[in-house]
């Protein structure tokens, strides 16, 4: 049985993969969002409030937190519809910062068993004890995280094979050309934003219940930058791309002692090198098609 440190890294990879997949989905549609951490944060707080203060079942809290994140993402998608490129990125960053700073002001505490519990501004929210109340081991919770991640991956693979997935890729390739194919980008950009927000939200609620303590500072811009970088490193040709990015960063750079203290330098350098030599990541569209073609030939033989 793997020790708790290894399990924590593995579960961290799973949870961060969800926000990476969220940023990836937007990257596929041609939108660079620096704000997915906001939806991760909204869901972390909402999901944790639902289980800890309202006594909701975990699954309901997960759906509630993620749904709220999806809704917020849809709203931001609506507000940023007419902007693109750098302006969209700045707008998403500004929104995320607005949410993070609002969380510093969020105080919502309820007396339970004679004690005030709940989010308390900058002090954070430290009584998220669903896993303790239900006697969930680290291994069990890791399995739960990966069950959710697997469901999301299956959903995203199906999405990529669908017409909606094709429209997302069309938008990412050439939005004007997509319009001249009779498709209004409005509907599809908002759909992508909602789905991406929901996926980030799944990660957020899982994160809050895994670490049992959250504070606004966790959901800062670096989380958003990392989630973007994972897709750009791993590749934009397949949903496995961002997972590879997460595995390289958290599974390798963060976990191996030799990189301690230098992780961000190595990671930043890696992103820069990737953007120069492989701008759409290791598993970009061309490589994915090549791998699929080889696999088909091999399978047929």
């Amino acid at each position, binding site marked *: 049985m793997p020790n708790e440190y290894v399990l924590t890294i593995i579960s961290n990879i799973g949870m961060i993969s969800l926000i990476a997949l969220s940023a990836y989905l937007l990257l596929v549609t041609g939108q660079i969002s620096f704000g997915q951490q906001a939806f991760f944060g909204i869901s972390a707080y909402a999901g944790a409030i639902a289980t800890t203060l309202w006594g909701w079942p975990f699954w309901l809290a997960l759906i509630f937190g993620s749904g709220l994140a999806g809704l917020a993402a849809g709203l931001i998608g609506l507000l940023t519809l007419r902007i693109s490129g750098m302006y969209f990125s700045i707008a998403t960053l500004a929104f995320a910062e607005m949410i993070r700073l609002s969380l510093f002001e969020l105080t919502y505490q309820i007396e339970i068993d004679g004690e005030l519990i709940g989010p308390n501004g900058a002090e954070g929210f430290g009584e998220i004890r669903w896993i303790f109340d239900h006697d969930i081991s680290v291994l069990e919770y890791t399995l739960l995280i990966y069950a959710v991640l697997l469901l999301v991956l299956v959903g995203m693979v*199906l*999405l990529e*094979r*669908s*017409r*909606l*997935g*094709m*429209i997302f*890729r*069309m938008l990412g*390739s*050439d939005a*004007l*050309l*997509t*319009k*001249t*194919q*009779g*498709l*209004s980008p409005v509907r599809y950009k908002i759909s992508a934003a909602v789905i991406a927000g929901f996926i980030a939200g799944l990660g957020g609620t899982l994160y809050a219940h895994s670490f049992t303590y959250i504070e606004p500072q966790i959901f800062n811009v670096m989380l958003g930058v990392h989630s973007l970088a994972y897709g750009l490193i791993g590749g934009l040709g397949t949903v496995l791309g961002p997972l590879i990015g997460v595995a390289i960063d958290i599974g390798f750079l963060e976990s191996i002692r030799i990189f301690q203290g230098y992780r961000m330098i190595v990671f930043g350098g890696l992103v820069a090198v990737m953007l120069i030599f492989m701008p*759409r990541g290791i598993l*970009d*569209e*061309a490589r994915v*098609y090549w791998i699929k*073609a080889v696999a088909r030939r091999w399978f047929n033989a």
Partner: protein
Amino acid sequence: MLELRSVSKVFGELSALHQVDLWIPPGRVSGLIGPNGSGKTTLVNLITGIYAPDTGQILFNGVDIVGLTADQITRFGVARTFQNIRIFSRMTVLENVLAALISLDNPSWRMLLGYAKSADDPRLNMALKALETVELQNEAGVIAGELPLPLRRRLEIARAFVRDPELLLLDEPSGGMTPTETANVASLIRERIAPGRTCLVIEHKMDLISDVCQHLCVLNHGEKIAEGPPGTVLEQPQVIEAYLGRD
């Protein structure tokens, strides 16, 4: 079919089109020619809703389409290619053609969430047939960005006509091609694309225009200077002057 009435478009200080009247007869191939900067592509962009005219009307089957968005105009039955080739370069050739068919009917969520290349979907057959028409059936699985230029042009044409549009606008379909490739595109348009269809071909190459068009309009400095059968139009002094300059 398509009629432009006093259409004008100004970009800053530049008058790209000034009071242009134009009529595209149904079921025939019309040509639109003019020197560089004469307003040809601006006119196509106005018809397809990429720009809105400052003044004037654009009537398609009697309906004024000014103010409609590009996607609405496409669904009305207008399809186009681009002077600077625009393809979904990271998608396969087949996917590029399928992309044009998604909006054929008003797409429901059920349809959108369905498998894009389902064998039961009549769109797949339509796309394969279109690729066969432009002789790209063997490249169906190739990434579009890897095609050489003449085949990219063919792919654009396939993507534009696969919806069976009422009006097909071909913006410089032989742009960047050698004389042999140009002749091949001309025969493709004449024999396979144009029959029974209303087309507007924007071109510089007179041999292609003479080969495929039955009706011709000439623009110069944003104004229409001639219109009529190609043989007559190309001999008019103002057309010769626009192309060759004054002595």
